[in-house]
């Protein structure tokens, strides 16, 4: 028997190595069992190896991605930086375009609200806000576009000034803040009349000839009265501020904050003609045509 075992020991060993695992498999397949202590020990021993291999592969990948794969990254960064700068400029242009569209939309809405007037749209191409008092804007429309001397210049916010001189393709606009500018106004609320005179400062004008007894208060809106023959009636000019009612004298003393910030105007409307009502004098009216 022993000799037989010795003789066929290799065969028996191989057969055992085949049969035992197969038996274990079928036994475990029907009744799954937990891992044995030996299994756990082997898995436990494997874990550091797996960690080490994983660490090595991760390190190699990091080295690749962090150093070798960065070849050419500087060129890409420079190209991307250029692209970003270009996009920033483009964005700025788009923002400006959007703001312009918004302003033009307001101007258009304003023009449509008064169908009795005709306008010439113009862009501001020059500004002269001298500390000495001269307050001028230069616009890109002139006599060939119907822009002539003394025509009112406005925006959707209110009165800007009037055309001072006009050439074929351009014109100078005397702002209401100029020292030599004067606009006939009335208080929108109480119809109290007065005159807005420029002080040579873009942020402030002076209210003249408002009678002391008349109804006027700080914050009152002043609109054009149309009696000066230059501006149509009802255009906003500014708001009354720093009103002082003295005990004596004929007139009230007040300042006017212009309705239009003349330092920021970019597009304007030149009023080329308008229908007048009975108390208003304008270029389109027969009264205006008869003026010198």
């Amino acid at each position: 028997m022993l000799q037989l075992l010795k003789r066929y020991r290799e065969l028996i060993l191989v057969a055992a190595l085949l049969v035992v695992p197969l038996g274990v498999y079928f036994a475990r397949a029907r009744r799954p069992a937990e891992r044995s202590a030996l299994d756990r020990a082997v898995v436990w021993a494997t874990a550091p190896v797996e960690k080490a291999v994983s660490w090595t592969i991760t390190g190699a990948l990091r080295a690749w991605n962090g150093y070798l794969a960065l070849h050419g990254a500087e060129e890409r960064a420079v190209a991307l930086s250029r692209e970003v700068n270009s996009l920033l400029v483009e964005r700025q242009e788009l923002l400006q375009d959007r703001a312009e569209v918004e302003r033009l939309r307001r101007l258009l809405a304003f023009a449509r609200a008064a169908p009795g007037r005709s306008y010439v749209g113009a862009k501001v191409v020059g500004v002269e806000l001298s500390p000495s008092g001269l307050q001028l804007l230069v616009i890109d429309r002139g006599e060939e576009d119907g822009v002539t001397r003394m025509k009112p210049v406005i925006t959707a916010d209110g009165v800007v000034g009037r055309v001072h001189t006009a050439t074929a393709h351009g014109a100078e606009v005397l702002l209401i803040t100029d020292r030599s500018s004067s606009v006939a106004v009335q208080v929108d609320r109480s119809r109290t009349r007065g005159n807005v005179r420029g002080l040579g400062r873009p942020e402030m004008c002076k209210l003249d000839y408002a009678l002391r007894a008349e109804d006027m208060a700080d914050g009152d809106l002043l609109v054009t009265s149309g009696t000066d023959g230059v501006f149509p009636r009802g255009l906003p000019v500014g708001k009354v501020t720093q009103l002082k009612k003295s005990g004596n004298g004929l007139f009230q003393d007040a300042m006017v904050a212009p309705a239009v910030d003349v330092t920021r105007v970019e597009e304007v409307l030149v009023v080329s003609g308008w229908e007048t009502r009975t108390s208003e004098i304008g270029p389109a009216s027969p009264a205006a045509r008869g003026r010198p």
Partner: protein
Amino acid sequence: MKPLVHILFALLLSALQASLLRWAGGGAFSLLLPVACVVYLAIHAGNVDGSVGAAGVGYVMDLTTGTTKGLMTFLAVAAFLVVRVVQSSVDVRGRVGFAALTGLTTFLVSFGALTLTLVASPSEVAPGIRLLPRMLVEAALTGALSPLVLEGMKRLDGLFRHEETGLLR
């Protein structure tokens, strides 16, 4: 001692394979690199140490692949015997031959595992024949990588080879 070193090498291969699959495949494909060890043992080792080594490698595969215990051990020993039979009639030389034999053996091991699982498991949880394309990919990839395992196993065997100095050849 030698079978133990082979088993440890299979353990290292399994760890390497797990890391590789994690980083490269992400579960899209699989490998059975320890099968290359079994093929090597079938070609180069003796009956006893080869079969014991193959069983050890199978045991490692059982643990690392998460199959029911005994399945891969049985299949590894069976693969060892099959390759031994094949090797007796076909002389496998070179890396290409080894890769082809490893690929074929890997497919047989996978197919055997599928068949035994179908036999032993309830039909609702048993894997279907739809795994066949995946098994073919696994066999091809394992065969392609097997020359590296061959080199590793050769180096390990070189550690146990003692040449007598002064012997004329």
